[in-house]
């Protein structure tokens, strides 16, 4: 595996090659990724991603906040799947606390997570196709994404920075009419996926730009830490939702799409099929949505209902205590991983027994996936670099944190 390791300093040296900067302001780098290319004509000799332009020190900031104050920060790591970040963090803290979450809250979390996955994959599909030159897909994808964002707004009051999952349950009861709207969307959505597939899957130009491009073997993908659709596109059958279930995923039946080829098209197929599977999971979550409370019965951790605070002294006191002092979390450490739209998102939370986390580390799926780029692109054309970057679905906010 030595060929995967080379990461030399980039200097224009030999006579034939030149150094070219792609980004940090290039439209196809989805944020501020800078890719340094050594090129020989149109051929890429070496490639080196340069990251850190969006580094905001979120991990450091978390150490200065109460546990519940970290939730809004997690939204801002990956702006395409804030609810997945919320979920991963709250699951980690709930594991530290040993909290039992009521089943309605768990099912709501699954429902919203799958909608988030659809939302994220739609942005990926639109921008990825746009990068390669298929403009119209973008418009269709963002049409459906808008519907999902409206659902998020209904349930949490926010389109993107939702912070809807709280330690111990959900922030609010889902509003009247939410389930009908969600059901309506889920009913319509499969035909929309057909629309995208009509535009792309059989399209010969799309095929030529993606098939056989940026190929990566299963062995290399594992060695380089790939996860999510990037790993499954290389034929590794592993999905945390099915294989190491969390938040009640063991109650759902779904297929994990895999492709064997390991090229851009394989990863495209994986994600497009995931759109359909996620829709099916969301349907199951809606059909089987249990009744009951949305918050765990743990007054020292979970904020009381607004109504109770007006009538019950204890609720008022607990509210005051949680807001001003936070709540102490028993000493320990947990690593909680969830299947985000991009792969294995993990939160490693260390508690020293106080009300503020001693250390919060986010395992960013994109950071690991980005390491595949040199193995994918070296020896290929510059145009393939654009296809390869799109196919690993990077979000720079998550990479840089």
């Amino acid at each position, binding site marked *: 595996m030595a060929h995967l390791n080379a990461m030399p*300093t980039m200097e224009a040296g030999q006579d034939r090659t030149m150094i070219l900067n792609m980004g940090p302001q290039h439209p196809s780098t989805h944020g501020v990724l800078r890719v340094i290319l050594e090129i020989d004509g149109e051929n890429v000799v070496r490639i080196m991603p340069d990251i850190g332009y969006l580094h905001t020190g979120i991990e450091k900031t978390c150490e200065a906040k109460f546990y519940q104050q970290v939730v809004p920060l997690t939204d801002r790591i990956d702006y395409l799947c804030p609810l997945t970040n919320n979920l991963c963090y709250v699951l980690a803290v709930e594991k530290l606390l*040993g909290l039992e979450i009521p089943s309605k809250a768990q099912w709501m979390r699954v429902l919203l997570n799958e909608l988030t996955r659809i939302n994220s994959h739609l942005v990926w599909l639109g921008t990825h196709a746009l990068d390669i030159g298929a403009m119209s897909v973008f418009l269709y994808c963002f049409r459906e994404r808008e519907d999902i964002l409206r659902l998020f707004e209904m349930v949490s009051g926010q389109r993107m920075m939702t912070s809807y999952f709280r330690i111990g349950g959900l922030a609010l009861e889902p509003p009247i009419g939410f389930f009908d709207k969600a059901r309506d969307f889920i009913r319509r959505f499969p035909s929309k996926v057909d629309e995208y597939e009509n535009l792309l899957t059989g399209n010969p130009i799309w095929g030529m730009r993606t098939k056989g491009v940026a190929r990566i073997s299963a062995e290399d993908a594992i*060695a*380089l*830490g790939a996860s999510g659709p990037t790993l499954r596109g290389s034929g590794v059958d592993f999905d945390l939702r099915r294989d190491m279930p969390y938040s009640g995923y063991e109650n759902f039946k779904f297929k994990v799409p895999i492709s064997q080829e390991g090229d851009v098209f394989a990863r495209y197929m994986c994600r497009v099929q995931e759109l359909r599977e996620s829709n099916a999971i969301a349907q199951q979550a809606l059909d089987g949505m249990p009744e009951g409370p949305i918050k765990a019965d743990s007054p020292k951790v979970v904020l009381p209902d607004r109504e109770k605070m007006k009538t019950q002294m204890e609720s008022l006191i607990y509210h005051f205590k949680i807001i001003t002092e936070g709540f102490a979390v028993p000493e320990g*450490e947990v690593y909680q991983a969830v299947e985000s739209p991009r792969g*294995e998102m993990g939160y490693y939370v260390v508690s020293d027994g106080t009300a503020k986390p001693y250390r919060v580390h986010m395992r960013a799926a994109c950071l690991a996936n980005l390491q595949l780029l040199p193995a994918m692109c070296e020896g290929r054309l510059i145009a393939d670099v654009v296809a390869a970057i799109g196919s690993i679905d990077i979000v720079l906010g998550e990479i840089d944190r």
Partner: protein
Amino acid sequence: MPGTPAITDIEQLKDHPAVIRLLASSSVVVEGAKFDREEMSIYVHRGSIRDACVQLRDDPGCPFNYLSDVTCVDWYPQEPRFEVIYHLLSISQRERVRLKVRLSGSSPSLESITSIWPSANYFEREVYDLFGVRFEGHPYLRRILMPESWDGYPLRKDYPVEGYR
């Protein structure tokens, strides 16, 4: 909310595949183990992290063939100050294990595992960038998130949250 207390007696943990494998290996010095909240942590001596990783990756029964994450915790002002933490995953057996290496506060360093898992490349660079832990044998140990010219290591506990002004 009480959970079951952590098990730290290594004799009781001998049925975990990773513990069996590491104890059976002559080149790995195991300093302790902890089973807490359904998660297994094994403390390994600083010099044997590479061997421990190779042993676990090549375990025929339960191959921990996937490196999920490398990170670090600063326990300032305690000594040993740093804990470098490796999260390994067995894709086939759906099992996780956490390896930990304790390092002293003065010029902390340990061997890089990039030759075992190339994915450690960025993870180790990140730990170096934010904690100042050096990984010997890393092919390209330079700052990854902070600017090249940055002074100090931001995630150390003696580094202020607002930064130096």
